[in-house]
Every structure is written in C-alpha cells, then in structure tokens.
C-alpha cells in the first residue's frame, strides 16, 4: 500500500515504452501489459521496503530484550536452583509451605483489593460529577486530578507522611476540634498505606471512567426520562451499564499497579505492611538471595500478567488502553 505509489510511478514510466517493438530486450520480452510486467518486481520492492521499515523498530526491540527479557529470563533460571545449587522447585514450594510467604501474598492481595474498592467508591461519583459539567469546568476538575498525577510519587507519599504523622495536621486539627484526645496512629500502619495508595491510584481510575462517561450521549438519559423513568432508575438502567467499560479498565489498571507497589507501602506502612515487592527488596538487599527473590518476582509477574490477560480477554482492554494499529 504505502510503498506501491512512488515505485509504481517509476515502473509505469519505464514500462510504457515496452509496447513499442524497437526498445530494449528487457522490456520487449514480456507479452503482458505493463502493470503485469512489473507486478513481481513491485511486490518484491514492497516486501523489501516493509522489511526496512520494520527494521526501524530493531533498536527498541534490542533494548527491551537486553534490559527486560534476558535479565528476567535469567532470574527465572536462577529461581529453579535451591540453596545447594541443585535444580529444584524448592523456591516455589517454600512459598506454599511457609506461613510468612502466604501472609505476604495475602497482604498484597488484600491491600490491592481494598485500594481498588475504595478508589471505585471515590472515583465513580467524582467522575460522574465531572462528566455532567460543561467541558470548560470539567477541565478545571481534571486539573485537580492531573496535578497529583504528575507530581512525583515520592512527594505525595511524603506529603501524607507529614499530614498523618503523630504531630501532623490531621491529629492537630482533630484534637483542637475535640474529635479525639490522644494523637491517633494514622501512619506507619495499614491505614496510612491505604490512604496514600488510594491517593496515588485515583487518577488511574478517574481518567478512564471520565472518558467513558463523557462518551455517553445525554440523549439516552433524556429518552429514559421521557419514557417515565425516574432519574435514579434512568441512571441505574441506562447510564451505569454504559459506564462499565471505563470502570473495569480503571479497576484492572489500579489492581495491577497495586500488586507491584513498593514505595508507598514501604514509607507509609512502617514495616507493618509487607508487600511482595518489599520482601523481594529485603531478600536482595540483606541476604543477596537471588533464588528466592526471583521466584517471588516470577510469581508476582505471572499473577500480574494473568490479571491483564483475563481482563484483555473478557473486556477487550486494548480498546481502552490503545495499542497496535487502529485496533
């Protein structure tokens, strides 16, 4: 398609004299009309050009192979050896046997589910509100979402640490207003972790939700109310189902990001909330135990990819996330 045009023109110019008998043998030999004469040549030319174009992606492919595929493959290989250096599945069976590993996976799962759930509860009404505003005002609301989105993750985690600490703002105000007397332990525990993670994940939920809600034509709602539905009924039977693709997309993204979360739980959890990624860091940092750490990492990756794959199958996520060519 793309290569045919210019090559085709050249070929036609060259080929047109071939109808005359007095011209060179290479043109005069073929009895077929000119386009048939060069069809093979053109096809080969196009294939060659496609290959060259495809070659443009080689640097990117090499980089991903060198930095991701080969090292991760290597880690996978390492995870198959036990402490004595023999080929075994010890690193994996230990995860099932040991209570501490099961607890870490449960914590990771619980934190991810809770964060995703709270994000849905907060993001849905907020996105709905934004989607009902005129575009100009909605842009202002989106600014409130984008500002934290673009602000460094560490800065936001730090901000929560400052706000929630023992002598922090929330405790200070709560005591001044007489809501509670002793400073509450708001951070360095699960609560602090959840607050921080919800804050960081909200934009990932709001943006796809807002996108899908904006796309819902108000005419559907008008039709529903014309037919006698109350606003609540019109919302639940018409609007809500139409907003589900955005909701699911946001949930998948948030859940998957939560599974691998490291910085926020490490800072706001105060060692009480141990997620898989934090355990991996400790194993490398303190014990230099690549085998066990790799096994944990591989399981984490498989879980992540499984969620993404299922979501892709069930929800056709690529329509939401974009990808490939005009999917």
């Amino acid at each position, binding site marked *: 398609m793309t290569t045919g045009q210019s090559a085709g023109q050249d070929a036609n110019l060259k080929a047109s004299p071939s109808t005359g008998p007095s011209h060179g043998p290479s043109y005069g030999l073929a009895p077929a009309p000119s386009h048939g004469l060069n069809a093979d040549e053109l096809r080969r030319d196009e294939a060659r050009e496609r290959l060259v174009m495809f070659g443009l992606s080689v640097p990117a492919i090499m980089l991903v192979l060198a930095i991701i595929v080969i090292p991760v493959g290597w880690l996978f290989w390492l995870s198959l050896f036990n402490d004595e250096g023999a080929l075994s599945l010890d690193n994996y069976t230990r995860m099932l046997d040991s209570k501490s590993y099961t607890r870490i996976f449960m914590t990771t799962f619980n934190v991810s589910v809770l964060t995703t759930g709270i994000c849905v509860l907060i993001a849905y009404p907020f996105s709905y509100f934004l989607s009902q505003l005129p575009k100009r005002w909605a842009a202002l609301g989106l600014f409130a979402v984008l500002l934290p989105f673009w602000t460094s993750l560490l800065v936001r985690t730090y901000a929560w640490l400052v706000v929630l600490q023992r002598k922090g703002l929330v405790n200070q105000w709560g005591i001044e207003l007489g809501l509670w007397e002793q400073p509450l332990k708001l951070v360095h525990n699960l609560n602090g972790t959840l607050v921080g993670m919800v804050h960081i994940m909200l934009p990932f939920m709001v943006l796809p939700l807002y996108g899908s809600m904006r796309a819902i034509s108000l005419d559907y709602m008008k039709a529903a109310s014309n037919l006698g539905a109350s606003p609540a009924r019109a919302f639940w039977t018409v609007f809500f189902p139409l907003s589900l693709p955005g909701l699911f997309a946001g949930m998948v993204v948030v859940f998957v990001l939560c599974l691998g979360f490291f910085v926020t739980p490490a800072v706001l959890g105060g060692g009480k909330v141990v997620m898989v990624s934090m355990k991996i860091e400790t194993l490398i940092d303190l014990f230099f135990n690549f085998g066990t*750490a790799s096994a944990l990492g591989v399981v984490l990756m498989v879980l992540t990819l499984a969620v993404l794959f299922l979501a892709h199958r069930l929800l056709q996520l690529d329509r939401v996330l974009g990808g490939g060519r005009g999917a």
Partner: protein
Amino acid sequence: MSWLSKPASDIQITHGARLWLYVVAVLITMFLVIPTLIVIPMSFSDSQYLEFPPRIWSLRWYDNYFGSTEWMTATWVSVKAALFTVLVATPVATMAAYGLYVSNVRAARFIFVLLITPMMVPVILIAIGVFFAYAKLKLNNTMPGLVLAHTVLALPMCLIVVSAGLRSYDMNQERVARSLGASRLKAFLLITLPQIRFSVVSGALLAFVVSFDEVIVALFISGGDMSTITRSMFLALRDQIDPTIASISTILILITTAALVLTQVFGKSDSG
C-alpha cells in the same frame, strides 16, 4: 435557594437532588489537591515537625538542600539521567512506532506487545534483573547503565503516545511528498514529523517524567555519587522524616505545576 429547585440538566433532576454529589465532589477535590499543596507552606517552617501554619517562617530547609553537596550531586544525576533518557527514548520510540505502523506486517502487533512489556512486568522484578545483569557487565552505579534502564522503562509510554499520533495522521500526505520525488526520510522529516510533533513532544515529556520520578530501579542500580535524587529521598524517608525533603518537594511541585499550566496554555493535541 431557588437555584436548588432548578433542573441541573435536561433530565429533570434538580440541583437540590444533586447537592450531595456537589459536596462529595468538593471533598474529593480537596483530598486530591490539599495534601500535595500543603507541603509548600510547611516547607517554610522553622520547626523540625513542619507545623501548619508555620509559627516561625524560615528558609532553613532550603539552605539545607542547596548547601548539601550530596543533595546537589543527586539532583544533577537525576536531571542528567532524565535528559539523556529523553534523547535516547524519544527517537528510538518514534522510529519503532513509525516502522511498526508503516510496515503493517503481521508480526507488528506482536512486537508492539513486546515493546510495552516494561509497563506490565512488575518494576521490582525488572530492578533485580537489571541489577543482576549489570553486576556482570559492571554497569551498576554508572550513568550509561541508569540511562539504558530508564530508556526501556520510558519506551512503552513514548511508543503508545507516538503511535496514537500516527494513527490520527493522514499518511497520504507523506505519499504525496514521496510521489513528488522526496525520499522517505525527507518526506518523514518535512511532512510527517511536523504534524505529529505534539505526540513526539508529549512522548519526550513522559520519558523525562518516568526517568526523573523513578525510584525502584535506581534504588538497586545507582548509588554513591550516582545516586538519583528520588533514591536519596526514598532512603531518607524510610529512615526518618527529614524536613529537607519538604523543600525539595516544594520545588518539584512548582516545576510540575508550571509545566502543566504551560501545556494547557500552549498545548494543542494532534491526536484529536
């Protein structure tokens, strides 16, 4: 209060009936914005505990930051790494996006998925993998090592943004240029690139942010004089609350806000 009984939209629901929604939306906006912004006044507090509002104003924590060789070195490492990442990731991603789009072979879709794996594999696994590989290659604690790793992390975002730009671009324009005798490269540089420039610039901006904001990989593969600012911040945060970080945070927030406002003012998307 007659405003409350007016319909809020064409669907006969009144502002009054939606009042709860407005209250909730305002609360959520506050939840989103205030914790980030409140760090700014607090960073000017003289106290170790960062009171709000500060009883005594001071630039103590800024002095701490600008006066510390360690923080300054870390800042430069981060800025340099992010700039180099932009310089490598943007052309590599643009080439890949263009190549995959134009060649349109069956494998293109597969390659696209391969190229966005850095976004799907847990970062911690990438971090220890790179750490392990770099240990063999002696690339730990070096700038090239850091830039390579960050480039790969930035690649997916860059690729997605530039691909989206290409999809909404009318490739016939490039065909016209080529039929008029321009070479492929010339047609791309003079016709296509100027029209997808917003996507390319967004991709570059994303690459900068990904690199500058990255903590986990840097935690493993950078250290000593090559420690990035986010790595130093993370380590300082995990151990104790160092108020110097408030001043650094303030500077970062102001840069972010300025960049966001600038893109809102000058930015026009070319992807529709």
